[in-house]
Every structure is written in structure tokens, then in C-alpha cells.
């Protein structure tokens, strides 16, 4: 732990920060001595600088009364990020780590407030790379209105991790009266998504470069709490929200159907896909329903609020392409898709990773 928050303390900018003059991280930077302190000050503390962040205590201290004014429950979540490559069209590991944890809070209806950031660095990682990632985290957090208030850094020897792994933990407050649950979907409800699917998964696959495919696909990585706030204001009866990350919407829909003990049927032709992502999947034999998203939610809302929900989503920049993709039916946890042929198929959970077909 190296950062802390005490409300009203002296701003970081006014303090004398250490400075790292070498070009790459060495094991010395994880040794707990001056080199480590300089690394933390130079890379993280200076980037995350905010009014609340000052005396380097071992923990962040949060004002309970201030939290309690915003709601009646804390939301608390954590996520690790090991994306390869670290920088990809539409984002980087830092932006992803901030947005991902914000979104995990947001889909519980929480107002995201504070994040922690733990970094595991591989010996030899360029300092400039770390500074870029830290700046990206800081910028994303600032735009999202959250503060990174505590953190930790470890250095491991070459080969023990792949350049940089991040873990972010988030705290948010759930306003009184908001109760979202994965088990609440009921027959007759409609299922919405806030836009085109699979962009992140396709962008990452393409960015790895081993497919020799040039693509213009950008990750949809974005913080969704603003969108969720608008949605919940317009459709307060919303039952379930989930961000469709790893495993894509197919996985989320299965989790919802399973937890709520209902069937969900989606319509193949209603499923929104960017042209490039569709082409990408056609070439590689991938199913876009299983591709990861980092800026998409699945919302289950009662039929009576479907229109209001759709309009609220579309009114937000991150929901312009929102659509109804299916509906909830009485059943036993099965997800199906109606295809253009008039036939129906089961959309199951994925086993292992999606593998490309060869013929």
C-alpha cells in the first residue's frame, strides 16, 4: 500500500515527488526502498493526483457520513486485467482497468466513487509505458468522476508475468430504492443491449497481429455508469443489468436465464453487429455472441417500461444503437436464438475458448 486519502489534506502537486531516471523497471523498484518510492511517486502518485490524495498512509480513509448521504448500501468489487496487447485500438490496459471496475459497480445500480490500483510489473518494462498507462487510468477516472485513492506495486523477475498486470477494486454507493438482481428476470420482460456487439473481442484479436488481418475495429471500452443512471431514471422497474464482458452476451444471457429460472429467446436479425465485426467473424469462424465487450450492457426491463428504457439508452452517446434483442419466457434456464430461416437453436455457455474452424 502506498497511497491514502484523508479529506482536506495538502494536494500532492505541492509535495516534492521522487523521480525515476532509468528507462526500465528493475527488481530494485520492488525492493521497498527509495527506488520503489520514486517509482510510485513518479508514475502513479503524480498521475492520480487528486485533492483527496495526500499523506502516504497504508490505507484510504473514506468519510462514512458523506457516503451515507448518497445511498443506503455500499457496492464493492474487484477485477484483474491481463490484456495482451497492452495498447489496442480504442483503449489500453489502464482505461480497461478503470472502466471495467466502474462498470461492475454500475450494473449493480451503484454510483462509482473510489478505486484502488494494484500493479504487478515485469522486470524490464519501460518506464514510459507505465507512465502512459497511469496517465490513461488517471484521465479515464477523471472523466468518470471517480478517484484512485490507494494502490500497490510489485515487481517480479522477467518471465514471471507478462509486462504489466493490473488489479482495480472499486467502491460505490447504491441509492435507496434501487434493487437490481440477476435472478429477477420474469416472463414477458424484454432484453435490451446498448449497441453493437463484439467490438472489444474482435479489436483485441486483430491487434494481436498473428491473424495477419488489418482491421479498423476499435474496442468499445467505456465507463457505463452515466448510461445506467439515465436508464434507471427512465425505467425504474429495470430488473437486471449485466455488462457483457468475457464470454459475450451469450454467457450473460445464460447466467440470467439460469439464475432467474426463465428462458430467453433472442432474434438473430435484431442482434446489432458492426459490419467489420461481422466480416471478421465470418472469416475466422467465430460467433459474435461469444466475443467480449467492454462497453455493453444487457438490460432486462418489464414490457411496460421497454419503450422508456430504449429511449433513455438511445439518448446517451454510449447507447445510440440500443435495441431490443429478445424477450424472457417461462422456462428452465435455456437461451435460444431464432434465426432467419425460421429455425431455432440453443445458445449455450461456451466451453473453453472459442476456437476457429478450419473448414
Amino acid at each position: 500500500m502506498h497511497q491514502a486519502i484523508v479529506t482536506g489534506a495538502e494536494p500532492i502537486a505541492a509535495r516534492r515527488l521522487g523521480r525515476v531516471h532509468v528507462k526500465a523497471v528493475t527488481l530494485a523498484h520492488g525492493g521497498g526502498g527509495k527506488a520503489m518510492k520514486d517509482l510510485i511517486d513518479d508514475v502513479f502518485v503524480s498521475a492520480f493526483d487528486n485533492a483527496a490524495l495526500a499523506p502516504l498512509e497504508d490505507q484510504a480513509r473514506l468519510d462514512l457520513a458523506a457516503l451515507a448521504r448518497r445511498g443506503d448500501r455500499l457496492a464493492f468489487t474487484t477485477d484483474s486485467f491481463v490484456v495482451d496487447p497492452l495498447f489496442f485500438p480504442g483503449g489500453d490496459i489502464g482505461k480497461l482497468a478503470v472502466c471495467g471496475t466502474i462498470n461492475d459497480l454500475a450494473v449493480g445500480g451503484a454510483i462509482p466513487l473510489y478505486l484502488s490500483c494494484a500493479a504487478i510489473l515485469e522486470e524490464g518494462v519501460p518506464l514510459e509505458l507505465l507512465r502512459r498507462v497511469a496517465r490513461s487510468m488517471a484521465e479515464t477516472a477523471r472523466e468518470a468522476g471517480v478517484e484512485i485513492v490507494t494502490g500497490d506495486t510489485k515487481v517480479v523477475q522477467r518471465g514471471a508475468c507478462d509486462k504489466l498486470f493490473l488489479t482495480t477494486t472499486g467502491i460505490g454507493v447504491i441509492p435507496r430504492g434501487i434493487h437490481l438482481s440477476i435472478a429477477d428476470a420474469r416472463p414477458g420482460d424484454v432484453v435490451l443491449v446498448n449497441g453493437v456487439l463484439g467490438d472489444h473481442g474482435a479489436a483485441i484479436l486483430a491487434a494481436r497481429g498473428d491473424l495477419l488481418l488489418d482491421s479498423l475495429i476499435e474496442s468499445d471500452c467505456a465507463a457505463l455508469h452515466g448510461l445506467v443512471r439515465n436508464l434507471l431514471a427512465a425505467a425504474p422497474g429495470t430488473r437486471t443489468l449485466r455488462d457483457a464482458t468475457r464470454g459475450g452476451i451469450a454467457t450473460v444471457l445464460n447466467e440470467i436465464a439460469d439464475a432467474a429460472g426463465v428462458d430467453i429467446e433472442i432474434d438473430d436479425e435484431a442482434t446489432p453487429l458492426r459490419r467489420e465485426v461481422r466480416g471478421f467473424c465470418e472469416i475466422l469462424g467465430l460467433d459474435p455472441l461469444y466475443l467480449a465487450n467492454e462497453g455493453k450492457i444487457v438490460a432486462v426491463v418489464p414490457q411496460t417500461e421497454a419503450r422508456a428504457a430504449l429511449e433513455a439508452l438511445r439518448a446517451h452517446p454510449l447507447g445510440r444503437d440500443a435495441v431490443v434483442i429478445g424477450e424472457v419466457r417461462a422456462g428452465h434456464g435455456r437461451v435460444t436464438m431464432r434465426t432467419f430461416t425460421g429455425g431455432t437453436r440453443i445458445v449455450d455457455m461456451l466451453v473453453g475458448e472459442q476456437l476457429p474452424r478450419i473448414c
Partner: protein
Amino acid sequence: MKYVDEYRDREKAQTLTRAIASLVASIPLAIDRPLKVMEVCGGHTHSIFRYGIEGILPKEIELVHGPGCPVCVLPRGRIDDCIAIASRPNVILTTFGDAIRVPGSTKSLLGAKADGADVRMVYSPSDALGLARRFPDREVVFFGIGFETTMPSTALTILAAEADGIRNFSVFCNHITIVPTIKAILDSPDLQLDGFLGPGHVAMVVGTAPFAFVADHYKRPMVVAGFEPLDVLQSLWMVLSQIKEGRADIENQYARIAPDGGNGPALRAVAAVYELREFFEWRGLGSIDHSGVRLRDAYARFDAERKFAIPNVTIADPLSCQCGEVLKGVIKPWQCKVFGAGCTPEVPLGALMVSSEGACAAYYQYGGLNRTKRQASA
């Protein structure tokens, strides 16, 4: 999207489905028993399941999912041999993604990778050759699998390696040929098939002539079919038309991709590099004469089987496994003793449960619905 949307048109699908229904209603044979049509190729199986095609067909048509998934028919011994090569200290083993989870006798290539073998997924053999160029101190081995569809690209890669004098590249050749296998299926005494959807991708390389025996000798209609859902429906309609008219011809629905004469340069590369093996072992079907190829002596230095000592063991399929009967259409996947119990996509016992083109995996993932419907209507 061009070349895709044309083949996924709702109205055309409905028109074809209605045409198939009225055609079947006029075939007297279909009154006594369902008409069994085998789609030879795994690509067709995938499309049929992905688009829910079985569910919209009249119950008088039964689709039998054939042996045309090269991953599904790989025997466990060959996987073990491949793992033995991959486990050698200096080897980078490259493979198509499909093959990585196929179970050998103790583990899959994925398991070997977890145990430290350098196993990498590639999208084409030329990517494997690229690795050999990048890592001149390592031995790069390509796990060559597939029918005539993928044979030419492996052959051309070997020719390129030879032209460039590359010495650290070889192929573990498991390429197989579909013709003797269709013959073996047609000779099987417990089989009753009324027609075939022919393998479009294989025909793209070899043309339609090699399939003439299906019509000439066995008097069964075959329509070489494309892989989009409308291709499958139209081809099915063409097979049924032949049955109704009492014809048995080889027709080509996929002429836009598969010329009747095949692909000359691809065939020349295949002929230059490979020769037929006396026999090759197929999972579920046993040993089939002249059904596999190996590298000719002239290319021995690119042959991983000769370059490395491999165990070359034959391992029988698990006794409880009924992959063979499923492949021949004798039983449906869910009628297998271990389907969904001892054998699931998470822990596949038989290869048909591994690839997304394997009939069992397809049923497990997509097909429960139709099965329930059919059982209810039966």
C-alpha cells in the same frame, strides 16, 4: 454484406422450406420411413445447427451427420504421436485451433501445452513456415490435418520451404481423403442412406468427377453443396428432386466456388508432394485403405514422421464410445451410451464431442431443442 447476405434471405429460406415440404409429400418412399440424407462435411453440420435448419424440415427428412470433420476422425494414437513431437525440447508445434482440444489417450495438445510443450495456434501452414524463418534455431512442426481442402496449402508450404532451403520446418502429415471413406460408408451393411450433400470445399479442389461412383455404382444422388444456410436448403431440395424422379446424378450446387474440373494448380501441388498411404486409421470408422496421404520420398526431410522418432502406436477407441455408429448414421448422437454423461464438450471422450463441427458437440450445444421436439412428435 456481399457474398453473405444473399445466402441468408428470410423469404428465400421460407420459399425453399415450403418447396422441400411439398416435394417430400410427393415422394412415396417417405411414407414408410424417413428419408436419410447425409451431409458429408462438418461445415454443413455446423451450418445446419447454427441456423436451426433441422427444426424447419419436415419430419420425413432425417439428416445424418457424416465423417467430414477432419478433427473428429483423428484417432487417439495420432494425437499421442503429435504430443510426443510437441514435447521434444526444441520443437514449436503449430496447429489449427480445432485440433488443440482433441483428446489423445491421456491428454490433448492443450494439456501438453500446460505441461510445458510449445504449442501454438496458426491459421495457415504458411504462418508455421513464418515461425520457422523467425526462429531458425528451433524445429517448427506443422500438424497437417484436413481433407483435400487443406492438403494443397500444406503442399505449397512444403514447396516454398524447399525453394527457400529452410531446414527447420516439417509437417506431421495427417491429411486424409474423403472418397475412400464415402465408399466405406456406402459399403457398410448397417447403413441406409438415400442421398448425399457432397463436400463443397473438397470439390473446390478435386472437382466433382471423383464422386461419380456414388451415382454410377451405388445409385445414390449427391449434390455438391455450399455452406450458407440457403445453399444447404437448396441442395437438399435438389437431392429430394432426384429421389422423386428416380435419378442418381452428381449435381453441383456450389459451382460458384467449386468448378466441376477442380483447381488445377492445387491438384498439381498435391500430386507433387503426397502419395497415398496403404491405409489410415479413422476414429470411429477403423482402418480404411488408401484413405490417407504421406509425403513422397523427395520431401522426406520435411516429414516429421521420418525426422523424429515417434511412438506410432495404435490406440483403440474407448469401448463405450459409439462415434462410429454416429458417423455412419446408424444412431443419433443422443442415442450413444455416453452422450452427455461420460462424454461432454468439457471432457470429451469421443472426437465428435470436440470440434464445433462434430455432430455430438453440435447436438450438445445447439441441438437439444430439435431433439426434444422430435421426441415429442414421435
